[in-house]
């Protein structure tokens, strides 16, 4: 409660920082905000060009030629949010050492800023994607609302993981290095670019332990498959998210004091 209170008191700083980060990223560029879209767009184009022929046949009953692109988009955008939150919170304490050392403020503001910033970027691009779905006649309808609980689970998992790594990274810089490599592997260990069904059976059983798999798969079901997600499969990522957040809370509260000595 006290935490929420103090964070509320510093809302000016949080909102201001999100605004400044956003502006800063784009104000010195010619194309400005366009870069938010261009970056994932290029990725999607590359994958579509390379994989669509390979994957097309694998979509049972697919009528639209865009099905693979939409499948890809839903996965990549969701993964993009996850990777932005985790990567940036892993480094947020180190990057902000300068102000941490000089000014007292609730330290938890920093990951909150990361979360809001990533959320903002996501909403811009996901909003455009939604418009695209509406215009191209691929909008899933009411089941689109399932995106909201999915995002909540994804974001809590990401921030829990991000804060844990962020705290560890202050003491052992290896965690930051490790995580950036691990994230790349993780991306390919999650069926985003490819379909789960193309994997051999033994890999599929192992991949079930990846908490991102059911999450991303639900996004794909909702947006590309246009059906309600299989809620039961979310139980596993949800519990992992709760565990990640608890570990984050323990690490954060226990080591925040020593953290300032290390920065």
């Amino acid at each position, binding site marked *: 409660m006290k935490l929420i209170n103090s964070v509320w*008191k*510093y*809302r*000016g*700083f949080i*909102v*201001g*920082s999100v605004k*400044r980060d956003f502006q*800063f990223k784009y104000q010195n560029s010619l194309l400005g905000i366009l870069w938010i879209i261009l970056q994932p767009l290029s990725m999607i184009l590359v994958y579509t060009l390379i994989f669509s022929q390979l994957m097309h046949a694998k979509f049972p009953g697919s009528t639209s030629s865009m099905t693979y692109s939409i499948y890809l988009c839903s996965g990549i955008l969701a993964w993009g949010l996850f990777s932005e939150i985790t990567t940036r919170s892993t480094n947020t304490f180190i990057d902000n050492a*300068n*102000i*941490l*050392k*000089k*000014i*007292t*403020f609730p330290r938890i503001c920093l990951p909150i800023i990361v979360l809001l910033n990533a959320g903002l970027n996501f909403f811009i691009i996901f909003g455009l994607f939604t418009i695209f779905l509406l215009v191209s006649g691929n909008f899933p309808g009411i089941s689109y609302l399932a995106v909201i609980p999915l995002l909540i689970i994804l974001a809590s998992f990401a921030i829990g993981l991000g804060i844990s790594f962020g705290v560890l990274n202050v*003491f*052992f810089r290896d965690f930051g290095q490790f995580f950036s490599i691990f994230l790349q592997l993780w991306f390919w260990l999650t069926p985003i670019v490819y379909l789960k069904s193309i994997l051999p059976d033994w890999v599929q059983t192992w991949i079930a332990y990846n908490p991102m798999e059911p999450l991303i798969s639900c996004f794909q079901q909702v947006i590309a498959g246009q059906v309600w997600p299989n809620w039961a499969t979310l139980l596993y990522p949800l519990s992992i998210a709760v565990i990640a957040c608890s570990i984050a809370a323990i690490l954060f509260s226990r080591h*925040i*004091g*020593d953290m*300032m*000595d290390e920065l």
Partner: protein
Amino acid sequence: MNSLIVSGLSKAYKQYASRWARLAEWVMPGRKVHHHLHWVLQDVSFTLKPGEAMGVVGINGAGKSTLLKMIAGTIQPTLGEIRVNGRLAALLELGMGFHPDFTGRENAMMAGQLLGHTSKEMRQVIPEILEFAEIGEYIDQPVRVYSSGMQMRLAFSVATAFRPDVLVVDEALSVGDAYFQHKSFERIRQYRALGTTLLIVSHDKAAIQSICDRAILINGGHLVHEGKPEDVMNYYNALLADKGRHEIEFNQASSGQTQVISGTGGASLERVRLLNSERQAVEVIGVGQAVELEVKVRINQDLPELVMGYLVKDRLGQDIFGTNTHHLNQTLYNLSKGEELTYTIKFPANLGVGSYSVAIALHSTGNHIANNYEWRELAVIFSVMNMQYPEFLGSSWLNPVLQITR
């Protein structure tokens, strides 16, 4: 009601033999401790009332900044407690963590928000901040193009935009020019009159003595002296002198090249003091005050002759005045081992306001090139303040007698 209570404050850093030791401590079962504590501050206690100002002095690395950081809340104390009644604003080091790529205006907004002000409040005071900081058109330039003085001015203006109940300042003010120092001390004085408690770290004797009611001396992580600023400053200077001696000894041992004949230690300085007319040691004197330089010398071996020279330098090390006993026709001859003697040089301190040091040399004959028994820089450090004369510039008081004919 006290505005700041510090009790039993201690800080230790955990030191691990290696990164792996820390990891082991974190993950290994059992509560085995793999670190040892390195204490940088131990058992510091004091209490400040509203409107009180306290200076913190001490040599570099004594633990002053650690103390202030704990009070400001950026690092956590290992032991002890800090109670602050009201809002605390701190100026630690330079620049309040300004982001180099954001403009001064953006940084001022952000710093204000970091101090817990809302955006609305900040928008209201921004014009005032800009006016006080006198950054001019630079305000919409990125902070990376600012001079350190400009950054400091902006930081000070933001930190003091709203009157805090406790203001903590860590040497930040020494960066500004004299004009801004004056202006910021004026603001601090105003706030004090309204009840703001001030805690300031400074090496500037005049600042401490003019603004503080009390001072504490931190040495080696302990609070070693507390009292009136003058007393504490004197105590501090004694410490400094002690430190200076070690350095000199080191110099002599290592730089044999330039002082080939020196190091004989044929005579040594026992004590060098600046005394007032009541023969009390002083660190701060007034312009024109009659003072005495007392130099105690011990003769360590039989010497055919001895000349003592002294040189007063300003804080930039420029020569202000120097002479020796040879020029004053008082060279001593045939000194025997074990003898002790005291030179007393009386002179009026017709010096400008500022900080000065005295270098002392013991040698034979009129110039240094001959036997150099001991030579010590910074044998005495003192400040000159103008207490009774009209204001003037420069390093000397050239007693003006004004006459106007019209």
